[in-house]
């Protein structure tokens, strides 16, 4: 199933290039309804005196710890609010999201 993908939330990747990068891509259907998202995992992150190896921010920007943290697989594949897979790169995550939808 092909979705229309657009940039979601952005942040500064901290690479010194001072440009905002998408940390989320949102996949919508033809009616414009959000069907899937791919979200970049942050980490390691030190917050409230705890070290999180991998975290994601929820809709309210609260830190959600992810376990297990898989080195390299920095993108979460979220279909209809459920994490269904992970991928090392955003484009691969998008393909996995579409594949997951097609499989349903």
């Amino acid at each position: 199933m092909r979705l229309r993908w657009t940039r979601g939330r952005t942040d500064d990747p901290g690479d010194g290039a001072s440009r905002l990068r998408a940390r989320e891509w949102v996949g919508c259907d033809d009616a414009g309804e959000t069907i899937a998202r791919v979200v970049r995992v942050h980490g390691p992150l030190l917050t409230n005196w705890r070290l999180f190896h991998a975290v994601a921010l929820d809709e309210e920007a609260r830190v959600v710890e992810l376990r297990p943290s898989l080195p390299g697989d920095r993108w979460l594949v979220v279909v209809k609010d459920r994490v269904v897979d992970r991928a090392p790169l955003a484009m691969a995550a998008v393909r996995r999201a579409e594949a997951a939808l097609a499989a349903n």
Partner: protein
Amino acid sequence: MARTPLDRIRNIGITAHIDAGKTTTTERILYYTGKSHRIGEVHEGNTTTDYMEQERERGITITSAAVTAEWKDHRINVIDTPGHIDFNIEVNRSLRVLDGAVFIIEGVAGVQPQSETNWRLADRYNVPRIIFINKLDRTGADFYRAAATLTEKLGINWVTLQLPIGIEDTLKGIVDLVEMKAYIWEGDELGAKYHETPIPDDLKDKAAEYRQILLDTALSVDDAAMEEYFDKGDVDVATLKRCIKRGTIDGTFRPVFCGSAFKNKGVQPLLDGVIDYLPSPVDIPGIKVAAEEGEDEAAERRIIPANVDAPFAGLAFKIVNDKYGNLTFVRVYSGVLKTGDTVLNTTKEGKERVGRMFQMHADKREEIKEVTAGDIAAFVGLKDTGTGDTLASAEDPVVLERMAFPVPVIDISVEPKTKEGVEKMTLGLQKLAGEDPSLRLKTDQETGQTILSGMGELHLEIIIDRLKREYGVDANIGAPQVAYRETITKSHTETYTHKKQSGGSGQYAEVKIVFEPKERNTGIEFVNATAGGSVPKEYIPAVEKGIKVQADTGVLAGFPTVDFKYSLVDGKYHDVDSSALAFEIAAKACFREGMKKAGPVILEPIMDVEVTTPSDHVGDVVGDLNRRRGVIQSQDMASTSVIIRAHVPLKEMFGYISNLRGMTKGRASFSMQFHHYDPVPRNVADEIMKASA
């Protein structure tokens, strides 16, 4: 000569493990860019960049030769660098001034130790790089396995832009994954024509799979490009190339090319890759100025960007003395310099007049009247400028970030065979040391002998050979000696009083010093922790000097003492009898007494040794390495060979090559490089101390 626009200049290095094909690739580049009308072959000893006699005789690259070439309206300054670890300084200083590098990986063995070392050096200088997997025509070559070693050994994120068509003796071309087409060469000979063709049917699926990986990786650096991809299902070639260039420059991933330079396949697309993906001087931020004395090295510092209209600033990165005189290779970072101009050497705070300037083509040179930002040229007429010095305009006298040089690990004594040779030898060695910062000279205080310290047996052998050929000095050489060091293992506080009264004014000084061990390779640190003027501040430098001088002669066997901290915590002085000399003497004695009680140990250089041997000799090789106090790190299969990696003390590695050849009937090879310093075992320490007594 018309100025080349900055965005059309590429300053690149070619680097790899020994014998991976760097010089052959450079020769092909020169041929295909039209600089060399006939091609040189390493095995025939007539390559353009290996112009020293020793290089041609041995078939290895010793000094880095700067070569300028033109390709598709771009100027490429290529520096061919040695692969042998003994000449690592050449790689080091080249990487420091280059904007990009081509790393050549051997198609059979993949990433080898020297590739790893050079890779880490390039990391240190943030050099953008592309990878060329070479020698795919060789028996046992495997592109995919060689590429996999990039992940295993370098731990990098790489992405291939090409796939080979055929392998070993059937290698005939490459698939270009950026434009999704194939190139087939019509022969193996030099200058063989190649033509564009559709991707062969048997490679179509694989090409599609790897192009998807390329798109996933490359477009990840640019959200707009990803959006374009999501909209159209693909991106145009220009967008893809732009993303690859961005990812290459910021180090997000490393593009991989492939071919066989020797069989003349893949060199032209590699040159296209240099133009397309490696940065011009304006694509990178520029060079940092050096930290001020006492300033934190990690602190934010001013950056000098490439700009022709700014005041002149350049870095001398290589000195060569040849029959024409003293040539200083300079990388120009900003401004313009003309023949006859005077500049400041801001490192040494002197003035230099530039007599003549040349664009270098290995051993040939073309005189130029000016040099501009972004370019590399050789200057004649500089008197006091050494490697790593900054040359700058008086308008903006900046000092650029300095170079780091490796520590020599091996010593030999050298003395001329005749009395007449003494002066010539001193002059020759001083000039050679001026060219090569990894070569150190010193005089043994006890024997009066000249001691040469270098990076390995081959390094020193070449120096002695050059001394004979270039300066006409025949010299007697001592056996190579390991450059041991001494250090301490525990803290100790020592108080020493120097008191002398023999008529007239006396000498009086008392120092209390805490000696503490430090991490390896962190050097010597001094802290003045005195309070209340117990040691007047005019005597503090004398204490520091005393320790510094005495540290050159360790308490166990007279080797330099390294990696310790000493804090002057207290002391006493006398209004009349105290002097700087008295405090220096007291500090020296305090060091001698204190170090003995601080758990002194002798350190020896441990080498990272890699032996490639046919599998039927593995047992012999491993047993032999164990006998040499080696610790095996890994054993890996590679085609029909086994690669054994071990940490072995340098002392045990002298003359190893002949032993290895004997053991394996000449079928094994090895390389080694300095890894770290470790304390020697007790029995070895006893032997060393006995020998030095």
